């Protein structure tokens, strides 16, 4: 997967389709004005795409031969995430669409994605694989790490800044991660996998011209057979875990709501005492 220092920067961004219903529009506030009914790309992946575009631009942009490829896997409608990424600025898109993928757990998903990245890398190699932080989804911290493991890449996750520097001729990713007790500066030789937080940038929005331009960008739909992956290694058949049952947690019931008439602080403490929380 290695790429020489002078070679154009080749970045793959993993993007995910999120159903519109994930957004409960009645709960949005004025800061949430982006039209979510059109949002078919996970908003956390927009930070990953923006980071990729900025890194390629910093390296001289498209004229330097640098390229951002947006990839996804999933059923037909998942292609919308790639289309949106192309509108925002990705140069090329891949959609892995195969019925055998249904029911894949982290192990199967990472197997398929790793095969797809190898396929895209071809002879040129891929320098960086970038993902969003996607912390709402049960398995998402597993999938990027397992993709990195399968491709034998170092991983640098949850970073709030990322740049490419050189150690002699060898490209190195330098990033910052802010933790609860400390802030780290992290370095990894390329190629590497990196996940970015929502602190890293302000994602751009597609304008009319970029939306038209996106229609001419290459978008490839591939199957497991194209990647040489055996269907039994993914999906329900290839899963290493099973979910036996899943129940929605009982919805929280609204409790007591009082208007402050001068003693609400006292009543609040009464409530804590009644719950044995003091």
């Amino acid at each position, binding site marked *: 997967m290695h790429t020489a220092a002078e070679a154009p920067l080749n970045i793959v961004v993993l993007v995910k389709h999120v159903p519109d219903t994930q*957004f*409960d529009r*009645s*709960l*949005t506030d004025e*800061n*949430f004005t982006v039209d979510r009914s059109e949002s078919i790309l996970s908003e*956390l992946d927009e930070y990953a795409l923006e980071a990729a575009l900025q890194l390629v631009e910093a390296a001289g942009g498209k004229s330097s031969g640098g390229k951002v490829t947006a990839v996804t896997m999933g059923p037909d409608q998942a292609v919308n995430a790639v289309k949106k990424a192309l509108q925002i600025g990705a140069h090329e898109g891949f959609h892995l669409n195969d019925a055998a993928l249904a029911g894949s757990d*982290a*192990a199967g998903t990472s197997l398929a994605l790793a095969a797809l990245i190898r396929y895209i890398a071809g002879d040129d190699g891929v320098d960086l694989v970038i993902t969003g932080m996607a912390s709402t989804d049960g*398995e998402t*911290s*597993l999938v990027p*790490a*397992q993709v*990195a*493991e399968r491709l034998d890449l*170092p*991983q640098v*996750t*949850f970073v*709030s800044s990322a740049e490419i520097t050189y150690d002699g001729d060898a490209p190195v990713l*330098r990033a910052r991660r802010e*933790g*609860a*007790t*400390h*802030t*780290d*500066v*992290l*370095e*990894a*030789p390329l190629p590497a996998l990196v996940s970015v*937080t929502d*602190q890293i940038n302000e994602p751009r929005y597609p304008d009319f011209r970029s939306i038209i331009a996106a229609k001419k960008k290459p978008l490839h739909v591939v199957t497991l057979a194209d990647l040489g992956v055996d269907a039994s290694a993914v999906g329900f058949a290839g*899963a*290493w*875990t099973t*979910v*036996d*049952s*899943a*129940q929605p*947690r009982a919805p*929280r019931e*609204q*409790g007591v*709501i*009082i*208007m*402050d008439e001068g003693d*609400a*602080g*006292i009543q*609040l*403490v009464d409530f804590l*005492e009644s*719950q044995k*929380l003091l």
Partner: protein
Amino acid sequence: MASVLVYLDHPVVPLSKPDRELLTIAAAHGDAVVAVGVPSVENGVAEALGEFGALAICLPTRELDQFLVAPKAAFLATVVQEVSPSAVLLDNGFESKEIAARLGIKIFSGVISDVVSVGEGFTATKSDLAGSYLATAKVTHGTPVLTIKPNSVEPQPAADPELPEQVRIQCPETGTVKAARITRRDNNKPSTRPSLTEASVVVAGGRGVNGDFSVIEALADALGGAVGASREATDAGWIEHSAQVGQTGQVVSPQLYISAGISGAIQQKAGMQTSKVIVAVNKDADSPVFEIADFGVVGDLFTVLPQATEEIKKRRS
């Protein structure tokens, strides 16, 4: 009895509550064996691990502390080969989840994260989709690798503790060359408050505090709790980013979460809706936060919070 392997990156005395919880779960399901990410442990650590049932400690032949994830997973895979445990348990921090994920691929084993309880045969109950679902899951291939959320079990000291034997395990040579490294670490201002994810009480402020977190802090201190915040408050720079609760911040599940001046956007709820008891103070009666509050006050946080703080102090004295 088969062993259960627990990975603790760098245990110190006193052992953290999550560390003691992992040991307790391991000891309940077999012989607890600990693997650590440092070549030697400080004085007293072996005894402390023994008190919670550890029978052996596996140490790497070199320092893995400055590396991220991959070399630790490689070391742990070697330990699994040597020890043949019936399961591997880690905490649910992001780095541990990543170590677990890579370990799973190395040893061809299923991984389950966000586990809230471990049952017979390592069946795991896990919290899914920001805590809105509870699922029962099982590893069907290889050695179960589980990452366990804090507060999943009450720590139990062993009935007759032993001093665990220390075993050195050769680290695989490959791995560190291509690994990510920490090249610099700046410690944040030390805090006397409990850490956000482990605290049993969290008091959080949002845009409504308007730059002044002192009333939030005073109530948190009166309750011995941690201070949290909405993204509006951290983005405004009123408090450090590490205090952010929500989808892109910390996910907390305390006994008590007090939300003040926070509207309760879906991304904020994702980080706190599994709290045992939720109290909300907001001057807008239509704020969505009231839909999930067990006790809500429609009022000004600058009068309600100080009054509550004073009242708590009074009742305690």
